[in-house]
């Protein structure tokens, strides 16, 4: 699985974030795979102290797996490329968390990432997680506004009023766990964080081998033989592995399958959705407030119990991948349907997300055509109806003027027209409720149309439920990505050829020309250049034993799997190059950048730097942002090709 380019990229990422010492250790471990300490010392040419400290810190960040073997008691170290790669996705994850759960949750998540893994008691002591902090910093106005707002809320809630509230510090103390624990619980309920287990610090293979050893040494297993033995061993091993690595915290934090702290906030967020770009900060405020309200409501129940302070949490990247994949699906839905439809889809996907722990059960992406069908959890229509914001105008976007309206619903049009908007809903709740559900169903039907088939309908026990066929949509995403690339590189003619080849399978030149309706000259040029690039290839089928060219059939074909794996390597390489470029650009401006990072200059640049220097700093920041942005775009492609 690990390739040269990937290894290089991971090393660069580690080095970029944590410095050369980490980079050296990581690169050595990647090159030589598992090493014990003396060997590692020999290969890396570092001192004992450097190695000890470096390894300890890297284990804290989960960048290195370690495993102490039972036989000789020697500890082996291994690079954790997965964790290293996810360094690059952290920005995306934090942005997502902010959009979903608000600013404070993002800060909390960032703190957990920064610490690697952390106990709740340690998180409690962090200064930046106290809500007071943005006040002092005063980074931007919105923060200040928001937190003032929260203060008002707190005081209005009444719980704090009976306390002697005059002294500010005391107020902060009472408030700090008030925000931290609910947010932690919300994150846990969504599954974005999980309990760190010892098995998380050793590689998956080691965990499996350990479990296997335990299983085979059991007396009842020893008595088994042959095939039955194998099957039981595999089964029991998986059981043990699951038990060991399972750090799910969401148990008991969900109400009817919806995580706490999610529901009300969402309604508020969605009502503002169409104008979100304008009012991002206001929207956030609303969400926070709603969340707070809900939390304070829940204070009466069992939710006053804070998270145990001995609990150790870490980020659950698997689950976050699911969430990010859904964001991608929504993007796809937005492309060719209305904003309302996309919102309905979002509600469906959210419901599904709560019950989906990871993107795939298999480690590798299955080959094209062998992947079968993997349906998500079916979500009943009534649940979606509950979730979708009541103010959302469902009928407006599927009126008769809508060109995206599917053919089959022509007859229903007058009926929908009659249900005109909110006035009807207000008057008789019953009929409008059912028609709302019906409209929702229509929206979802729209999404179920080809070519994307973003949803599919199921009737389970008389109830209408909706699911998503993951493998199909993931494949579509993959193909779109490849087609985008081919078009950019070889033009639209090439795209047509590739599509024909993909639809029809292997074709010889003449047939291909007939189908694609292209002149021979164009076709050949395009095919030749694509073959050089490795996108299409040629198969020879000799008609006789001599294999003469004149008596051989040449068939063109396009294999998306092959192309995708090649492209993936290219993408890794491109990401590495971006990071290397960044390093080089940095070294060019080193003197200047070191000046801006001086402890007296940092923070008050306006005071110390000249106008030209300020401009230069701005340019540098833009350049850096562009390069990181490029890496993050490439990461989107990696996600499509590897993770979804």
């Amino acid at each position, binding site marked *: 699985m690990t390739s040269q380019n990937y290894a290089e990229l991971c090393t660069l990422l580690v080095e970029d974030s944590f*410095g050369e010492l980490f980079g050296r250790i990581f690169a050595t471990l990647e090159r030589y795979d598992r090493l014990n300490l003396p060997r590692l010392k020999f290969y890396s040419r570092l001192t004992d102290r450097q190695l000890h400290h470096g390894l300890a810190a890297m284990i804290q960040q989960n960048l290195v797996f370690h495993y102490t073997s039972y036989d000789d008691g020697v500890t082996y170290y291994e690079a954790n490329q997965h964790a290293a790669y996810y360094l690059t996705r952290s920005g995306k994850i934090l942005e997502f968390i902010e959009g979903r759960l608000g600013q404070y949750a993002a800060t909390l998540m960032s703190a957990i990432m920064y610490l690697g893994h952390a106990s709740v008691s340690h998180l409690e002591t962090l200064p930046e997680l106290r809500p007071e902090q943005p006040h002092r910093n005063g980074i931007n106005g919105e923060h200040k506004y928001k937190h003032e707002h929260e203060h008002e809320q707190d005081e209005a809630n009444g719980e704090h009023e009976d306390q002697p509230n005059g002294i500010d510090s005391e107020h902060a103390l009472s408030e700090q766990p008030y925000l931290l624990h609910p947010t932690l619980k919300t994150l846990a309920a969504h599954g974005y964080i999980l309990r760190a287990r010892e098995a998380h610090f050793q590689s998956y293979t080691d965990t499996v081998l350990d479990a296997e050893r335990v299983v085979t040494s059991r007396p009842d297993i020893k008595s088994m033989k042959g095939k039955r033995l194998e099957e039981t061993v595999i089964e029991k091993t998986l059981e043990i592995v699951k038990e060991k690595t399972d750090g799910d915290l969401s148990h008991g934090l969900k109400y009817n399958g919806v995580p706490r702290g999610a529901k009300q906030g969402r309604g508020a967020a969605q009502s503002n959705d169409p104008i979100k770009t304008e009012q991002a900060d206001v929207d956030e405020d609303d969400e926070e407030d709603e969340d707070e309200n809900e939390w304070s409501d829940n204070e009466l129940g069992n939710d006053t119990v804070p998270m145990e302070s001995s609990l150790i949490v870490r980020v659950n990247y698997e689950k976050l991948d699911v969430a990010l994949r859904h964001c991608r699906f929504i993007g796809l839905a937005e492309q060719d349907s209305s904003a309302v439809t996309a919102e309905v889809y979002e509600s469906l996907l959210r419901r599904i997300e709560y019950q989906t722990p990871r993107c795939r059960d298999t480690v590798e992406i299955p080959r094209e055509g062998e992947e079968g069908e993997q349906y998500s959890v079916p979500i009943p229509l009534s649940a979606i109806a509950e979730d979708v914001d009541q103010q959302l105008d469902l009928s407006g976007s599927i009126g008769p003027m809508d060109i995206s309206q599917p053919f089959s619903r022509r007859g229903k049009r007058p009926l929908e027209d009659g249900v005109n908007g909110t006035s009807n809903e207000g008057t008789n709740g019953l009929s409008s409720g059912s028609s709302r559900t019906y409209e929702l169903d229509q929206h979802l039907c729209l999404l179920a149309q080809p070519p994307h088939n973003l949803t599919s309908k199921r009737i389970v026990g008389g109830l209408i439920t909706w699911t998503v066929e993951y493998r199909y949509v993931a494949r579509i995403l993959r193909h779109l990505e490849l087609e985008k690339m081919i078009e950019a590189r070889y033009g639209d003619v090439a795209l047509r050829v590739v599509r024909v080849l993909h639809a029809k399978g292997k074709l010889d030149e003449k047939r291909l020309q007939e189908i694609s309706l292209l002149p021979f000259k164009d076709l050949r040029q395009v095919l030749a250049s694509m073959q050089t690039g490795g996108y299409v290839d040629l198969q020879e089928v000799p008609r006789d034993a001599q294999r003469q060219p004149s008596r051989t059939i040449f068939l063109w074909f396009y294999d998306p799997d092959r192309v995708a794996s090649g492209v993936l390597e290219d993408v890794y390489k491109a990401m590495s190059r971006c990071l290397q470029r960044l390093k080089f650009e940095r070294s060019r401006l080193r003197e200047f950048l070191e000046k801006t990072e001086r402890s007296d200059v940092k923070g008050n640049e306006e005071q110390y730097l000249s106008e030209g220097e300020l401009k230069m700093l701005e340019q540098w920041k833009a350049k850096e*942002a562009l390069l990181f942005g490029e890496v993050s775009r490439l990461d989107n492609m990696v996600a499509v090709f590897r993770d979804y």
Partner: protein
Amino acid sequence: MSRFGAKKGRKLPGAEFSWETDAGGEPDTAPTPLYPKYNVSRAMLLTPREQLQVDYYRDLRDRYHEGPYYSVLDAASSSAKKGSAARVNFDPFHGMPSYSGKYQKKKRTLPKLQGRPYIMRFFPRELWQTIQPSFKPENSMDGYVPQIARTGAKRGFEDDEVEEEDQMKRRKAEDDEEEEGGGGDGEDILDPDEEQEEEIVDDNFEDDDDDMGGDYNAEQYFDGGDDEYGDDGFGDGGGGGEEDTF
């Protein structure tokens, strides 16, 4: 192509199979331009959302950089030991210490482990002592050591500069002692006191006195070079028999 001795008016051998040409047409044998026009594709500007993502990433990265774990291999400065690699790479134009150097960001050569709680059972035994210098391997051989609550744990490293200076001096002394002692089992059980300190290479002028005073230092004349061999694990016997096997 010319190796086939192409004659005028005759097609080159194999030219009819070229993909570029028409099936029956004349081949285009003109040389390709030396510097063809090249379209450099430019990256699109970041969308606001991407900008936000990048900002988050940068914030986190900056925090890592400011944090206790960011460490470089060689902080080239004039205070580096003589003859060491760091000294060779010293930049004579910009590396000389200057007054503003005291504001310069200090670079670590070792990650700082102190100052935050660790969960010992997640770490292999051989690193326990590194993480918690108070840990004695002989005390609790089974189970994991309950985490010792640290009161008044410091975050950030700027505020304990004064201690560091003392520690640097003390460490230097200790290093010398250790070298003389021969380093009995330097492999896994390290001197707890030694582990307690951190190494920060900065351009403190007070510290530099020993090394910078002149080229000649009678006290360190003989044992100056020993440190390196001990550290690099090449020549010394303290490293244990493991290395001798290759």
